[in-house]
């Protein structure tokens, strides 16, 4: 599976976690692909930390530089949406008003530690809003390709990259698998084309099988 395909597979699976009536915050990267796969019959309010609730789709014409998502790309606003300053935007986030936050990740540990803000000596994007999204969201879903390009695992016993927030990730979705973080990490779903053994081979973390998977 190519990297591009993998990203689409992950986004499509993540879209199933978004239910009618939810307030959702999407990080940049793979999460930004999620809206393309939402059930069109459900009504969701997307929030962005630059100061908008009720983001609608990319405008087909006349994009407005002052109406953008947190990545700076043009969006629209739905009826019932609102604009506010970034202090209120993060106030909502920390206060637990976001039903589900879907973030890209560099690594996730079996305890749900999230690493997604810095690769020392290489990439220094800065922490952005990730720490607060991870802290406040009622449900935090981390999306990432299952392995690095060189094949090394990203779901770890312990993250080797600097931590964004400890014990925050509730679900991990990759192109190979869906995990839930509880007292232990649990494999819930094996994506099409992979086996449990494939996942064992590409995962450093210890995990148990869900009841459904254990039966097979």
């Amino acid at each position, binding site marked *: 599976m190519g990297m591009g395909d993998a990203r689409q597979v992950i986004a499509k699976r993540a879209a199933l976690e978004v239910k009618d009536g939810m307030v959702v915050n999407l990080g940049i990267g793979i999460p930004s692909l999620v809206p393309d796969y939402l059930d069109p019959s459900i009504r969701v309010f997307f929030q962005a930390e630059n100061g908008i609730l009720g983001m609608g789709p990319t405008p087909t014409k006349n994009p407005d530089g002052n109406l953008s998502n947190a990545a700076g790309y043009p969006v629209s606003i739905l009826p*019932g949406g609102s604009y506010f300053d970034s202090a209120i935007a993060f*106030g909502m986030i920390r206060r637990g008003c976001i039903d589900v936050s879907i973030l890209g990740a560099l690594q996730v540990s079996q305890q749900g530690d999230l690493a997604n803000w810095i690769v020392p000596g290489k990439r220094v994007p800065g922490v952005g809003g990730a720490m607060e999204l991870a802290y406040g969201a009622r449900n935090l879903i981390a999306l990432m390709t299952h392995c690095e390009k060189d094949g090394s695992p990203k779901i770890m016993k312990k993250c080797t990259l600097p931590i964004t927030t400890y014990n925050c990730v509730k679900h991990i979705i990759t192109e190979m698998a869906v995990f839930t973080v509880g007292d232990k990490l649990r494999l819930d779903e094996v994506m099409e084309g992979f086996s449990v053994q494939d996942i064992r081979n590409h995962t450093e973390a210890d995990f148990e099988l869900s009841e459904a998977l254990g039966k097979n």
Partner: protein
Amino acid sequence: MNPFDKVTDYDKVRSLFFDGMTLLFGGFGGVGTPPGLVDCLIDSGVKDVNLIGNDAGFPWVGMGKFVCLERAKSLIASHIGSNPVAGELMNQGKLKVEFCPQGILVERLRSGGVGLNGFLTEIGRGTKLEYEKPIVTINGKEYMYEAPITGDFGIVFAKKADTFGNLIFDKTARNTNPFVAMAARTTIVEAEEIVPMGELDPEAIIVPGIYVKHIVPSKGYNWKWVWEMPDKSSRNAPPSK
């Protein structure tokens, strides 16, 4: 519950209240305190309520109406000067009052409302207010720690709400209402007008609907203001409904 239609009625709200609850209320001298929800609170019969709001209103205005019934156990407020009954209950030991500087109180509500863990200030240093508060030393200088406030319920008075709970307020009736809405675990709004989603200008919305759980329609203030009273020093409530 449909998260995009939060409109309900006073019966529903009344059934939510419980003895011993912590209730945050908007308003400043009764201006911006939701009159229908105060009556709803009174009618609910609940007692031992822990109140948090700017002041104790007047005996016949705002939260003052409830305070006079001796069913509040405690009150955190900036002053109770306009409600002599509150002062008497305090002196009789029937109402535990904690005074907090006015702007500090609203910041404590905000701190709870935005998910922070309190703040430091020099306001009140060395005064009687200081003695129950932790002192924190930063770079050799001492500050008072002010704790965030949250509560079981918050009652708010809005000029307009859409069905999602986006709110706008009326002039100086805004005051502490936005922070009560943000700080409460369950925020209940009494709105003078309720409109469909999409009717409020997204730029003008003061409180986004994400903070609001229930909305009830208002009939407006049902008390006389002190400046409308023939005897402005009167302690006796005029007919209120």
